[in-house]
């Protein structure tokens, strides 16, 4: 498979998905689709950081929740228009991401994950105490309003296409970021940090920028969430929500563009199907986590090329097939190998 060929395939997939997105609300309940877009956007934010910069954040739900509360509050209480409310929420979420980023990126690897996890507790606690969040009751009856004074978002289809448009823009933004020199620098840092430093890159700065960008996207997802659901609650700043988003990304494929979307589709449908389990649905989500990590770390999208290659192997004479290694346009090499601190000689307790 040549690179132009694979590029064309990718283009066909994207165009096909956009067409699918346009006709989908006429067949599937729009609310389900909007839920998918919101959480897929959140997943893409997480994926930008984890998949491309190697930073596992358990804390993005704070930016998501902050933006949800801020947008909801400004629209409901101050009477802002939806676009201004979203702008305000995203701005606040991004600023918070910048502040948190200063602390979080000071530790790498596993410590980074634990710090972000701990910060969720602080965010959750503040959200519970602040009067404007409504505490345990949440912020309810957020009006959707009229976008740009033209589009009446109370109509389900108008809201759907608004969310869809934002999702597509966010997706293109990710593709752009990952393909840019900045994205390449991020990936080089993930693969081999020492070499990235020796090439003149500054990992702390790269990490900080990636963190803020990713926080921005998470905040955007949060603002859209409050517009879609018309409420914000404490679960929007709970680590469990973040865990779910990690699962969606992991299941779909870490470090792939379409992974978060596919993973979200699967998880949303599983949750709907398993809703009779109530809160114990975590048994199922936890089991998927375990299966994903032991069985297929590259996720559904990441494994697709090798499945495709296997099928080709079966139907096409052996000498004409390519090896599975060259057939992974989406996957990165990282998932199957250890980081630089593997169980080498003389490894000390860290």
């Amino acid at each position: 498979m040549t690179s132009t060929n694979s590029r064309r395939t990718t283009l066909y997939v994207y165009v096909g998905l956009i067409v699918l997105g346009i006709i989908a609300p006429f067949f599937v309940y729009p609310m389900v689709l909007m839920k998918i877009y919101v959480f897929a956007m959140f997943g893409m934010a997480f994926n930008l950081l984890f998949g491309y910069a190697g930073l596992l954040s358990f804390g993005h739900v704070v930016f998501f929740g902050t933006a949800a509360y801020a947008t909801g509050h400004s629209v409901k209480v101050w009477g802002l228009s939806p676009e201004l409310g979203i702008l305000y929420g995203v701005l606040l979420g991004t600023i918070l991401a910048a502040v948190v980023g200063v602390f979080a990126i000071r530790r790498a690897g596993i410590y980074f994950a634990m710090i972000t996890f701990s910060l969720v507790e602080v965010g959750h606690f503040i959200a519970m105490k602040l009067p404007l969040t409504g505490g345990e009751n949440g912020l309810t009856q957020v009006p959707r309003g009229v976008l740009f004074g033209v589009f009446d978002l109370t109509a389900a289809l108008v809201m759907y296409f608004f969310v869809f448009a934002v999702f597509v823009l966010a997706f293109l933004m990710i593709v752009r970021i990952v393909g840019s020199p900045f994205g390449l620098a991020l990936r080089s840092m993930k693969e081999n940090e020492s070499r990235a430093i020796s090439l003149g890159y500054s990992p702390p700065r790269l990490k900080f920028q990636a963190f803020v960008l990713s926080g921005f996207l998470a905040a955007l997802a949060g603002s859209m969430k409050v517009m879609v659901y018309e409420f914000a609650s404490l679960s929007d700043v709970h680590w469990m929500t973040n865990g779910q988003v990690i699962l969606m990304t992991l299941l779909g494929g870490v470090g792939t563009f379409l992974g978060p979307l596919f993973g979200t589709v699967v998880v949303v449908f599983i949750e709907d199907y398993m809703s009779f389990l109530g809160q114990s649905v975590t048994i199922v989500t936890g089991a998927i986590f375990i299966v994903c990590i032991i069985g297929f770390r590259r996720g559904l999208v990441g494994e697709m090329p090798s499945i495709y290659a296997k099928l080709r192997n079966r139907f096409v004479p052996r000498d004409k097939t390519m090896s599975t290694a060259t057939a992974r346009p989406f996957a990165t090499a990282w998932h199957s190998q250890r980081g630089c601190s593997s169980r080498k000689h003389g490894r000390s307790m860290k």
Partner: protein
Amino acid sequence: MEVFGVPLNLLLGQMMLGLINGSFYAMLSLGLCIIFGMLDVVNFAHGTMYMMGAFFTWMLGHYLGIGYWPSLIIAPLAVALIAIIIEITVVRKLYALHHVYGLLLTFGLALVIVGIFRAFYSVSGRAYSIPEILRGATDLKFMYIPTYRLWVLFASVVVCFGTWFVVERTRLGATLRAAIERPDLVSTFGINVPRMITLTFSFGAGLAALGGVLAAPIFPVSPLMGDSIMLIVFAVVVIGGLGSLLGSIFGGFALGLLEGLTKAYYPEAAHISIFIVMMIVLLLSRSDVIAK
């Protein structure tokens, strides 16, 4: 007598209670530390082991009428046994992978275990009565303290420093530390390193479960009790580092003490004081340049 506007009795009382909370933090972060040292896995399910310890104690009492003292041994052993099964079936598959996968896998494990307990027992807390001889209060001259809490503090200090002594000062500990540094070399001495890893994991889990048994008479026994303590233990570990046993023991006690102090002066902030300290420590310390 007052200290900065807070009655001395109240201050000492809160500090004492903080120290007792700290004994749980210390036991949990110590186990987390040992497991990380040996397995290179940050065990997200550690809080669940603590929860299971408390829950088994309650179940032993509720269904079989087995009292506190036998439970103090049976419950940690049961949890350690479960940990052995978990290690052999799933955690073992992780050793060739990057750290973050260990965290994610054990996160999934925690979800499964908590989900199972939730399905059967819902989230409401259950009370477990304090054993007969530890009821009542003890006069410490400056304050009265429930005898049971004093016992918790004593037990935790003994267990923590006992563990430290075994790891740092005995032949077994020396072998363990050697296996951490050079598993390949140690196995050439005829030592079964994989079995050692399994037992280390189960020991860490048993330690958390022992904490759970000690906690059962004080805190409501609920499937969610592990989650809340886990957040704090992570902060303790970020401050004390995963590398040193003493760091995690003292870190645990010190942060419990700090929480108690905050409770005396500004109760609203007590819950997040540990996290604020974590942020200050992060700002002041040298940042990691290379990912570990």
